[in-house]
């Protein structure tokens, strides 16, 4: 039972990270109907930026952990968001309205460029970071055989995710930018006619997705303690699976999907075989698409002539 509880805690933490990445996929897909293949690599860039930011903040003499965290978080947000903006501007904007596969190919190319650029300028070796937030709450009763720990870091990740989700929901539901975005999602041409700057809205969508991916990158850096140029691919695939599982285009769906994928991965590693944990996630993706292509919370799509 304790073992199960520990796996659940780990799964929810993982799920929070996947959910944050999944939002970027789901928003972009909702608005322009493309799979932003480079999104996982944006997360990887975010992880590198936060690693660098930690070292810069350390070099500047900031020793208080909360302050350092806030500074790194801001740095990761801003710089990763500008990467998201630049990727859209360079590789996708001109392909809007082109035939359907063109943006996907361009995105795959962008993903290769980002990965190899990072490998080139930062080296291919795995970059370690000393644990910054350690310790946690012992949840298990005294004398039990398997101690259950809820780490401070895990609490931080989950709380930060919830806060971001709340802020994000507010942004989408209540602000004029969110309204413009929902309008663009429903009907791009009509939104354009009604005076919404569609280009800007789409740019902002990428910026928001990338900012969340940057935070996810920071979390990955803190949680795993190692970063390399390849982490974006697998994490991106899992987050995409999460987005599809929750119903692509749906924001709560992305969060729910992320949570489920995190739990599946943690429980599979805990009880099944750790080598095949990626297989489990991909198998879930295939099964969902086969039996419920619109996902758990998505709207079924009607195909029309």
């Amino acid at each position: 039972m304790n073992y199960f509880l520990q796996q659940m805690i780990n799964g929810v933490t993982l799920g929070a990270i996947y959910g944050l990445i999944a939002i970027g996929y789901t928003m972009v897909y909702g608005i322009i109907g493309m799979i932003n293949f480079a999104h996982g690599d944006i997360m990887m860039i975010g992880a590198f930026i936060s690693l660098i930011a930690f070292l810069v903040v350390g070099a500047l003499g900031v020793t208080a952990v909360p302050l350092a965290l806030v500074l790194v978080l801001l740095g990761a947000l801003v710089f990763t968001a500008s990467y998201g903006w630049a990727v859209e501007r360079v590789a996708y904007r001109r392909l809007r309205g082109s035939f359907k596969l063109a943006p996907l190919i361009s995105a795959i190319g962008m993903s290769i460029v980002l990965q190899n650029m990072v490998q080139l300028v930062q080296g291919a070796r795995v970059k370690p970071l000393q644990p910054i937030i350690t310790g946690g709450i012992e949840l298990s009763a005294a004398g039990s055989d398997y101690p259950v720990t809820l780490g401070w870091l895990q609490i931080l990740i989950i709380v930060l995710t919830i806060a971001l989700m709340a802020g994000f929901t507010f942004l989408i539901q209540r602000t004029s930018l969110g309204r413009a975005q929902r309008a663009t999602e429903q009907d791009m041409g009509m939104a354009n006619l009604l005076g919404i700057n569609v280009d800007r809205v789409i740019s902002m969508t990428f910026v928001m997705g990338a900012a969340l991916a940057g935070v996810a990158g920071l979390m990955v850096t803190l949680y795993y303690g190692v970063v390399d140029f390849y982490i974006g691919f697998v994490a991106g695939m899992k987050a995409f699976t999460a987005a599809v599982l929750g119903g692509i285009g749906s924001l709560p769906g992305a969060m729910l999907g992320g949570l489920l994928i995190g739990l599946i991965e943690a429980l599979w590693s805990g009880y099944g075989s750790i080598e095949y944990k990626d297989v489990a996630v991909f198998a879930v993706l295939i099964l969902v698409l086969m039996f419920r292509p619109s996902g758990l919370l998505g709207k079924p799509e009607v195909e029309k002539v």
Partner: protein
Amino acid sequence: MAHASSSLPKALKDAFLAALVAALLALPMLGFRLADTAQGLELEPRLSWVPIAAAIVFAGRLALNLAAPWLAKWKDRAPAGKPKLILRPSRKPLYVGIAMAIAALVLPLTPFGDRNILDKATLVLIYVMLGWGLNIVVGLAGLLVLGYAAFYAVGAYAFAILAQVYGLTFWQCLPISGAMAAIFGLLVGFPVLRLRGDYLAIVTLGFGEIIRVILLNFASLTGGPNGISGVPRPSFFGMPMTPSSPNGTTFHEFFNIPFSPVQRIVLLYYVILLLALVTNMVSLRIRRLPAGRAWEALREDEIACRSLGINPTSSKLSAFALGTAFAGFAGCFFATRQGFISPESFTFLESAVILAIVVLGGMGSQTGVVLAAVLLVGLPEWFRDLAQYRMIAFGAAMVLIMLWRPKGLLAGRTPTIRLNKGDAI
């Protein structure tokens, strides 16, 4: 870029903004280097790189802006003309194709055909064949598959395992490899082919990763990360290409010529050339059969096809099975050429390269595939010294060609039969 202007002040301003963005992007990633030291990770500032990156972007953007009017002339233009039924598009590609095939056939006889060139040409031909195979699925049937390397792997491993366990030869395994890959294709395709285009892409990508993870972890059969070595070389009608053979005559004894290792390379070259040409022939001929017509029609409009009584599932399945069978053949050849296979050779990047060849070549265009394979696989082989920059250039080429010509280098999406749009209908 769409609003790039040719007037100088505007172009300068635009380039300046681009350089500003580049500086912002470069600041964290280029401005600092994470260096591993004995004391752990340390930061190595190299802020001088940031203005350099910004300057490069400034110059590039300015040049692009100034060249925009000329570049615009190069863009695809829609064919104009009176409506007419085109039963056979131009014969020109046919002559180009025949000329290319003859050039490929005589290459080993020319002075250019030394060992090095033939080796590289063989590699390019593998990708040409894979590109043509995938072209059936992506170009003709319009099914986006991102896990093609998985079927390539199935073919390679089928041969390697059969050779290792049962001692079968290359020629015995060639059809088996193709059949195995096709069976896998059917197994995967059956449940997922009714999905929409981009979902299908992701599912096949997931499948490709599953295959790779299984190859890595099912060590008792596949050798795990160490792969399988000692895959047998092909023989020439049963005559091995070795200096001597314990059973039977070898190739050089039969023809009474001195033994040379180049002979094997030439044989490999001709085998893959033959396989590639067969792939090409099949996909060209099948376009004229009802099956091929149905694929092209499905690509253009699935709903219309359904109402005309074409069964989309079985049509797509047949295209998928045929395309994956060719991947299996190519995999079998790959295994015999390398003599060693491991999961490393069948990563997602491999699938991406093959797909890039098809799409960059212009989907459906057979000549375009050759061009793109030479460009993406052949050229980088010559610049091996720049291996670090190779992949960046490769990714950037994918993006740039898409931006410049979204329909591919040679846009070949012309249906075999077409009614030119006009006001007659």
